[in-house]
């Protein structure tokens, strides 16, 4: 009987000790408050984002973080950054990784844009922004599709239509705007057709196609500029 009692005295401290060890190993638990707090989520999100950026060769030039609080309290913070990237594959590979690794959701992305101008480093400059949300908003159905439309449209331009993207702009829920150029008018028309197929978009807000003469190219260059309202 006395053995049993003494073993009980042993068991309780041992349990406490093991629990302590587990707690010590599981940083999440100690960081519970920090992780659920806006500052914690923000720090972890930005850290992961920067890791992914460096993995894809994306240079973060300038960043702005703003704490936001909507009426519903779903928005944790707003992040805006200027980036430099080598090509579209690197840029969209970066966003794919962000989604794959659960760092950002497609419905959190606010804008992605680039004028496709090269900086001194020889990289293209662009920018993107997102609102980090606590939970998925009720109206988020189209967002993965919208991102996919942008990605397909930008990639297809050079791969399938032999046209050059000069500028693109994506605004969540709202619109995609693309400026592209080609030596062939029919390529641009086919691209507009492609973009409007399968009800990808609600409608075009504006389309302008113009023939321009550039001495540099020694021939005519057609420039397409369109804005499409998203569904």
């Amino acid at each position, binding site marked *: 009987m006395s*053995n*049993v009692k003494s*073993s009980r005295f*042993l*068991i309780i401290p*041992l*349990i406490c000790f*093991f*629990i302590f060890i*587990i*707690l010590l190993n*599981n940083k*999440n*638990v100690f960081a*519970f408050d920090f*992780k*659920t707090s806006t500052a914690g989520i923000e720090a972890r999100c930005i850290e992961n984002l920067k890791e992914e950026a460096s993995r894809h060769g994306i240079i973060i030039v300038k960043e702005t973080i703003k704490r936001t609080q909507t009426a519903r309290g779903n928005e944790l913070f707003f992040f805006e950054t200027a980036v430099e990237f080598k090509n579209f594959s690197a840029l969209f590979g970066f966003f*794919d990784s962000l*989604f*794959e690794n*659960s*760092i950002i*959701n*497609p419905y959190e992305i606010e804008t992605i844009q680039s004028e496709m101008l090269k900086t001194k480093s020889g990289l293209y400059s662009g920018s993107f922004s997102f609102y980090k*949300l*606590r*939970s*998925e908003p009720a109206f988020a*159905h*189209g967002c*993965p*599709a919208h*991102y*996919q*439309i942008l990605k397909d449209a930008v990639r297809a331009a050079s791969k399938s239509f032999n046209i050059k993207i000069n500028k693109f702009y994506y605004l969540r829920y709202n619109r995609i705007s693309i400026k592209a150029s080609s030596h062939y*008018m029919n390529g641009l*028309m086919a691209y*507009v*057709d492609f*973009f*409007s*197929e*399968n*009800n*990808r*978009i609600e*409608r*075009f*807000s*504006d*389309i*302008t*196609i*113009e*023939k321009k003469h550039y001495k540099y190219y020694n021939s005519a260059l057609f420039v397409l500029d369109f804005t499409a309202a998203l569904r």
Partner: protein
Amino acid sequence: MFNKINAVFIIALCFTSAGLFTACGGGVSAKMLPVSEVSRLARDFDEGKKNHKTAAAETLSLIKEMADSSGLEFIKARYGGEMNNPETLISAEFNFSTRDLNCFSNFIDETACGTHGFNLSASSFCVTSRKDPSHVSPDGRASKIYNITAVIKRFQSRAEVNKNLAAYSAIIKYCSLKYEISSVILSESNSQLSLSGSFSLKGTKKSFLEFLRGLRPDGVTGWTVSEKGFETRPHQIMIPFLAEIFFDK
């Protein structure tokens, strides 16, 4: 024996605790979508709809094809969004250039006749000319380039299409063959076709009036033709004129 049971109990407790805390940790992070899921959602979003092009893209393609087949050189197309007018589907402004005004009258014919189902119609246009020193005609004069700005509309029904298109085309074709045309303007607001140019010995005011009387196109309500001065060229006298032809709205 008892100690062994206790040890097993403690280890089991440790694993349970570890599982519990890991689960808690997992529960903290927000629900995220992997890329495969993003692609699937995007595909579902696409597949849920019929294969359908927007009316704007379809209309621009068609007008570009018609301009090509008529021999007009494309300069610019501008579609500025949907119309507030429920009868009009699309309105787009086009800029073309040509050396032969016949090409433009062919284009008007095409919009009137070659696009059944699309209900296209040129609602207004403006043709201006400029001399092109790089091209010299056989009589030694610099040839002309016509710059055309045309607003083409696509209507819901055929009834809305401009009924006077055939008349505009016939008049432009006749004038471009017979006279030297400087400008042609079709005003949408009052359906008035204005032509300016020069009569010559080959094509005089008399012949123009005879043409208008003989043609008597439907919808023409009247016309005025005024001449102003004259200018001399080797072997011919040119008389600048302005013709205004009024149509039913």
